[in-house]
């Protein structure tokens, strides 16, 4: 169900602004359609299209060189704000599999792995240098190798990145988290019983339910 992430060589697009929040990635008015109907058209909708629905030529993903981008290189706090997973859905449905930035919104960070979207944190000078190269050579490709934990920029320089082992494994194998958790059913059940025994009041809604 989740597409594994191994290596990816693709066009990368620079997103220069800091604080690109999830309201910009997926505006609120599009969030109620069923998941299976897809969210590709929602991605950066109000940055990408004018009020009358015409493409804005100045937006980076509308420019011919970047239209096929599958990697984004952003700045700090990409994906901050709302918990809407639709932001991740809009990205992956548009073919984006990797976002590189200085930092990410915390909930966006947790959501990304559920759809096989790799988020890579690099420091400010490296992110700025990568974006500089992408501006200088529109349409240039970047390679992301998750197994080796390294990125190769248009200049051929390799940049290594850190990733938590659990995250890496889930992305590499497209693991479903509920499946992972279900393996621990016995431990969960035992813990739950002990928790209930030491916090019994949490399980008696007495007055509220009787009344």
């Amino acid at each position, binding site marked *: 169900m989740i597409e594994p992430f191994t290596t990816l060589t693709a066009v990368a697009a620079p997103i*220069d*602004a*800091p*604080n690109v*929040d999830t*309201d*910009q990635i997926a*505006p*609120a*008015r599009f*969030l*109620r359609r*069923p*998941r299976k109907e897809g969210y590709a058209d929602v991605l950066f909708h*109000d940055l990408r299209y004018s009020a009358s629905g015409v493409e804005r030529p100045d937006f980076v993903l509308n420019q011919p060189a970047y239209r096929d981008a599958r990697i984004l290189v952003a700045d700090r*706090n990409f994906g*901050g*704000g*709302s*918990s*809407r*997973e*639709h932001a*991740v859905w809009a990205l992956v449905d548009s073919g984006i599999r990797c976002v590189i930035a200085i*930092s*990410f*919104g*915390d*909930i966006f960070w*947790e*959501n990304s792995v*559920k759809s096989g979207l790799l988020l890579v944190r690099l420091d400010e000078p490296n992110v*700025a240098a990568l974006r500089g190269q992408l501006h200088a050579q529109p349409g240039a490709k970047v390679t992301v190798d998750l197994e080796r934990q390294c990125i190769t920029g248009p200049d051929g320089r390799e940049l290594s990145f850190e990733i*938590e*082992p*659990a995250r890496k*494994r889930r992305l590499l194998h497209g693991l479903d*988290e*509920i499946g*992972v*958790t*279900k393996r*621990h059913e016995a*431990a*969960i059940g035992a*813990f*739950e019983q002990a*928790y209930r025994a030491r*916090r*019994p*009041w*949490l*399980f*008696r*809604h*007495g*007055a*509220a*339910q009787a*009344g």
Partner: protein
Amino acid sequence: MAGPRTLLEKIWDDHLILEEDGQCLLLVGRHLAHDGSYHAFSALEDRGLTLRRPDQTFATPDHGVPTVSRNVADIADPSQRRVVEALPVNAAKYGFTLFGLNDPRQGIVHVVGPEQGVTQPGLIIVCGDSHTSTHGALGALAFGIGASEVVHVLATQTLWRKRPKTMRITVDGERPAGVTAKDVILAIIAKIGANGGTGYVIEYAGSTIRAMSIEERMTVCNMSIEAGARAGMVAPDEKTFEYLKGRPFAPQGADWDAALAYWKTLPTDPGARFDTEVALDATTLEPMVTWGNSPEDALPVTGRVPDPADAASEVQRAAWRETLEYMGLTPGQRLTDIAVDQVFIGSCTNGRIEDLRAAAEVARRGKAVVPAMVSPGSTQVKRQAEAEGLDRIFKEAGFEWRESGCSMCVGMNGDLVGAGKRCASTSNRNFRGRQGRGSRTHLMSPAMAAAAALRGRIADVRDLVAGG
């Protein structure tokens, strides 16, 4: 467990089932759901899974509900209506507790949880909404999750998380007149940045926080996410216990005594270490207003719109330039010279009874010269406000008195700010398009928003209520 521990560490350890690959599997104490949880319930069904703990799941519709009435037919967008209608269907099917649209306990989920005593100290609380951090004000670890994790919690009542870093923000000193909890948290975000808390859970401490009511602490914790933090929390104290006692879902009788004994063990031990410490002097604060499209773009109301020429970096300069263009502002312009088109008072940040009292205290001094709307944070808050006559004050001052919901904070129910229109808002996000495509939002406290309604521009509330 050896050594002094923080409030966060105590709650974490108490809910830790096991660790694997550096990730902790945590038991979830309470799961709060709302109309937007619809995607998760659909996925649960598609996967043939079922709700593991109906008794630990509580829901109320808020994001898409109409504020003109309690009638779902008043939701204009059919997809939104379908989602609001799906919640009671799922409640009946799975058997969780629902405070439905016509229930007097309905409201914004982050107002309702504490109000009903569902939120309690020492719990791990999750909800498919980023402002779940609000519940940390009662000494819980509470954070927002996405739709896939909502499915995970529905099916397993657990969640995987890496141990977060700890940050303590100590705010000391007496707040000057006119400075509210909203101003304190906006000042904190301006200081540490919209990503200053990334990877952290924040504990708010210090005399200013201790002196705050539980409702004020909720305002502070609510916006922790706007500082990038996973959660914000305040150690439970006598105020917390006093607040909870007698609430419908709070423990009763012997249970209360047992719970209280446990809650009293929760505060951070003396000598416990935080990964980062931040200090703020409350005595120097002023009422705050945001000028830009990130909550970090907050300044004292006496300030001026910044000049991109003064930005610290080229990236920042470009971002500020674009922000000023979007917001229709000029560098150097006084914040109090910014005219507003409308005013919104409400949301999970500032929709509680104390917020409405503060706004009414200003509203009673004049008439709104621009459209102004008040949407109480819950139906119970609405009734309380009506019992106190606050609704009359607002109506006499020309404010619209609405029903409870997320309303214009996120605009999903059709309560929108028009393109190019400027709104003084007590909500939590000034993002581009947050209140409607092309909307321009300025965040501020309820009293400041009411002042903006009376003046038709951003105003220093201290000028209106000088001398009380």
